[in-house]
């Protein structure tokens, strides 16, 4: 190939041979989305209940903030390598890393969602005779839903942009193009892989932004 690697990468993307078969772009994109969804969902199962509890009770906030900060500081490539050494090549090591990557945003989203309800509103709900569970599910969560979705948005974009590391330890996803290209010095393919990841991240970001708008509670002016 000749000319600029960027144009070559577009040519690579335009090549219909790359859009079919087990190594084709649609399948790799699905794998990539699958890793992302799995990482974010497992992280959500851990982080959202804890975040809701911290936000509702006000207890353990210092610990949660410190843990989220510490998790943010961990280099994901290092984690993937470390876990791969511990559990071997495959999907487990990158997934564990994605879960750790996704937890801080989800935790922060969940507790800030619950905390965002006016204390006077929560007090009034309690004084009317709502149980703590009813206060959480009927007052705090509906009012804070955009912030919770915002946590999912942050986590999803981070994980989708990092999920190419799965290919680094032998799994699939769009990272395949990048690491294969790196190995064979096929820069157009590397750039094409990167462009696909960027496009996917943008699409997910905009979709979840829309979800944030749609979950804004009625009757409350956009904050």
């Amino acid at each position, binding site marked *: 190939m000749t000319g600029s690697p960027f144009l070559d990468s577009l040519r690579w993307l335009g090549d219909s041979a790359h859009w079919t078969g087990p190594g084709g772009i649609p399948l790799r994109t699905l794998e990539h989305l699958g890793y992302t969804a799995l990482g974010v969902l497992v992280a959500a199962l851990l982080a959202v209940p804890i975040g809701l509890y911290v936000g509702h009770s006000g207890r353990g906030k210092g610990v949660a903030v410190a843990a989220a900060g510490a998790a943010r500081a961990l280099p994901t490539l290092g984690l993937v390598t470390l876990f791969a050494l511990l559990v071997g090549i495959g999907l487990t090591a990158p997934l564990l890393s994605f879960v750790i990557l996704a937890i801080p945003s989800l935790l922060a989203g969940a507790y800030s969602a619950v905390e965002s309800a006016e204390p006077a509103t929560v007090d009034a709900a309690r004084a009317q005779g709502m149980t703590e569970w009813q206060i959480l599910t009927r007052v705090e969560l509906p009012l804070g839903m955009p912030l919770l979705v915002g946590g999912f948005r942050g986590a999803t974009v981070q994980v989708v942009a990092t999920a190419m590391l799965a290919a680094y330890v032998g799994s699939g996803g769009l990272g395949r193009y990048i690491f294969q290209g790196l190995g064979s010095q096929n820069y157009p393919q590397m750039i094409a892989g990167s462009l696909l990841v960027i496009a996917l991240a943008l699409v997910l970001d905009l979709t979840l932004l829309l979800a944030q708008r749609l979950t804004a509670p*009625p009757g409350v002016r956009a904050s």
Partner: protein
Amino acid sequence: MIGFENVRKEYPGGTLAVQDFSLEIASHESVVLVGTSGSGKTTLMRMINRMVDPTSGRVHIDGDDVTSLDPVQLRRSIGYVMQASGLLPHRTVLDNITTVPVLRGTAKREARTHAHELMEIVGLDAALAERYPSQLSGGQQQRVGVARGLAADPNILLMDEPFGAVDPIVRAELQRELQHLQRDLRKTIVFVTHDIDEAFLLGDRVAILRPGGIIAQVGTPQEILADPADDFVSSFVGADRGARTLHVERVDGRDVVVDADGRPAGVLAASGDRSAGEGAADGRTRERSS
């Protein structure tokens, strides 16, 4: 009947909100707790529905110690109207009013029918039913708050400075309507305010509190004005400034009632003329203190 027996409330850190408070409130009576901030008046009121539990002492309702009752069930059985309405911002007027009945298991349709009646009783236009609180004026929000407090037909209504955040004209209107309402409904009302005129207007009895929930004087407005217990009470009700010492001056053939500072307080009704009706209690007390 609501009873406070030697109630004390101390917060962690040593703040003493209430020292030693005892008071009995009869059924169907309206009692106003009045005092400045730090007098513990809201703390005391919130002990009735267990939003606050006393450090020591007892609060009982019809003989039952409230600490033996489930707080959630207790709160659903007591109406609560608060300052700045405390409405749920993401729910419509109708859904706010039906909050407690729905929590108590009333069928939604039945609760909504009743809510429409309540809206009429508290003077809310039916067209507002599907509005959100942010789309209402302050006065309308307070009316919704009152309707919500009444929705489960509680025997007891707690009102925490409910009219504190609205302008004086709307406040006077809401006070007058509450008087009408109380004439028909005869709830046991515990009302908290820092406004002595509001207290005298709405209370069958008024308890004037010093800081720390100490009762400076409790009695009917007439008793308090006629015989303030001490300088604190005199100062609180304005008797020391001459605001409660009225005399009659004749201006253009009418009897004008003037306070000790020369500020006109009103005109003297012709004998047998009770058309000033609404403010009768207030008017009487002022006449008596002259």
